C-alpha cells in the first residue's frame, strides 16, 4: 500500500463546488457541458450561476460535440507537481470549442508534443476516466 501511495495522481476538481458541479456531473455521462443564457444567448464558460452579459439566472445547459480548435498552447518541460513532473514534456492548450466556449486542457495522443501541436489544429475530446468524474482531454482529429 505504501508503494501505491507514491504513484503521483492528477489533481482533480472538487465535484461539489456549486457553480461547476453540473459540468463535472456531466463528465460522468461523457457529456462536455456548457451554459447559454436563455434571455440574451450569451455563452457562459467557466460555468457559473448567472449570465456574464445580463446577470440573468436563466441559463440552460447544453452539450458540446467536443470538437474544437487549438487557440494557443505551450509544451511544459519543467513542472514541480509530482504528477505533472512525471508527464513532461506535455502540452497545455486553450481550445475554442465549435459552440463557443474557450476551455483549458491538455493535449493527448500526440507522440512528440514538440512537433505534433499547432495553433489552429482541430481536436476532439478524449475522456480520462476517474472514480467520480472524467477529465476532458483533447486529441488531434
Amino acid at each position: 500500500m505504501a508503494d501505491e501511495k507514491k504513484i503521483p495522481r492528477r489533481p482533480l476538481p472538487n465535484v461539489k463546488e456549486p457553480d461547476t458541479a453540473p459540468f463535472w456531473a456531466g463528465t460522468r455521462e461523457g457529456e462536455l457541458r456548457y451554459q447559454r443564457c436563455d434571455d440574451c444567448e450569451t455563452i457562459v464558460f467557466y460555468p457559473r450561476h448567472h449570465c456574464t452579459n445580463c446577470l440573468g439566472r436563466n441559463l440552460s445547459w447544453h452539450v458540446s460535440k467536443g470538437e474544437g480548435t487549438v487557440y494557443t498552447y505551450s509544451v511544459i518541460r519543467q513542472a514541480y507537481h509530482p504528477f505533472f513532473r512525471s508527464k513532461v514534456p506535455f502540452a497545455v492548450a486553450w481550445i475554442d470549442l465549435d459552440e463557443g466556449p474557450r476551455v483549458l486542457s491538455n493535449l493527448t495522443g500526440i507522440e512528440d508534443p514538440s512537433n505534433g501541436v499547432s495553433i489552429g489544429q482541430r481536436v476532439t475530446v478524449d475522456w480520462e476516466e476517474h472514480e467520480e468524474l472524467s477529465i476532458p482531454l483533447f486529441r488531434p482529429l
Partner: protein
Amino acid sequence: MATQARAAAIVGIHEYPSRDVEGAVTPLHIKTESALRALEDAGLTIADVDGIYDAGDGGMMSGLAISEYFGIKPNVIDTTMVGGSSYEYHAAHAARDIAAGKCRVALLTYGSTAHSNAFAIGVGGRGGPAAAPWDNMDGFTGMTLVSNYAMVAHRHMYEYGTTSEQLAEISVATRYHAMRNPEAVAGMTALEFMDIRETTIEDVVNSRIIADPLHLLECCMISDGGGAVVIASAEVARDCKKAPVWLLGSGEATGYPENGGDITTSAAAQSGPSAFGEAGVTPSEIDIAMIYDSFSITVLALLEDLGFCKKGEGGAWVEGGRLRFDRPNDGPALNTDGGGLSSNHPGMRGIFLLIEAARQLRGESTSQVDGAKLAVAHGNGGMLGSRHCAGTVILGKD
C-alpha cells in the same frame, strides 16, 4: 501639462539589497528595515506616517498587522492585493487619498523571502483543493505560471510573426542594465547564476526551454527582497531631502479569459490610456519604461498595450537594442535596474518599478538616462494569459 495636479509625490525610496537572506530575516524585517531607510531618505520619521498601504505580505488583515508591528495609528489603511501590480495601485490610491486630504504621508512596504522558502513560483503550484469555480476548471491541467505566459507568446507569434529573437531583445536589454547595477550583480552571484555577464540574443534563444516558446533566460528569477516607498503631499514634499517625483496619472484594469477573446491584448490596453490621459502625456514623451518583466512576452505585450507601438508591432519595435538606456533617442529605456529578469523578483515586483522610476527622475540610477523627465511604471499582477490586474502610474519630475 497645465492640467497636471501634482498633489502627491514619491519623496522616499529604499530597495532592500539582499536577494538571499539565508533564512535569518523575515518578510516583516525586510518591510521594517525598508520603511526606516525610505523615511530616512525623505527626511521623515515613522511618526509622520498617517497612511498605510499593504498587499498582505505582512499577514492576515495586514493593514492592522503592519500598523501594530510599526506601532503607528494611521488614518488611512489600504490593503489592495492585486499581486505584482499591488504597488502601482497603492501609489495611485495614496495620490488620491492625499489629494482628498485623508492623509499626508503614505508608506508602502514589501518584503518576501520567496527564494529562501524555495517557492516554485514559476513551475509549481496548481493542485490543492479548488475553492473557486474558475480554479476548479483549470487546476487539473498542470498549467504552470511559465506556460500561462508562454501561451500568450505562442499566439503573439502566430498572429503577428513575432520571433524568439525579438522576444530575446527584452532579456538582453535588462541584463545589460543589470550588469551596471552592483546590487543586481551581487544578487545574481548570491543566487548562483551560472554565467553573470551581458548576454546576446543567441544566449537567450540557446538557453533551455522551460515552456515552449519561452526559454530560461526569458523567465524572471526567484529571489528574496523587498522595499519601501514614501509618498507625501505637495506641502510635505517641499521640505523633504530629495526632489519630489510627482504622481501625474494612474489607471487600473482587470483582464480575464473570454470566449473568443484576444489573449495577446492585456488589461494594460485599458489602464494605460487612463493613466496617460490623466497625466496629459503621450507614450512618445516617456523617457523611462518600468514594465513588469515577469517574462519577455509580458514586456512585449505591455509595450504594445500601453501605446508605445501598435498591437503586433512590438517584435520589430524592440529590435536592435532599442530598449537600452544609452539609446535615448529611440524611445524609453526599459527596466534600468535590471528588472525581474536580471535584478530581483521576490514574487510581487511592482514596488521596484516605482523605486527605479524615482531613481531615474532623481538622477540616481546605475543606468542613468540623462535628463529623464517622465517615467511610466506598469505592474501586471496575476497571470497575463488568463486572469490578471494592470496598474499604470505616470511619474514626472519638476
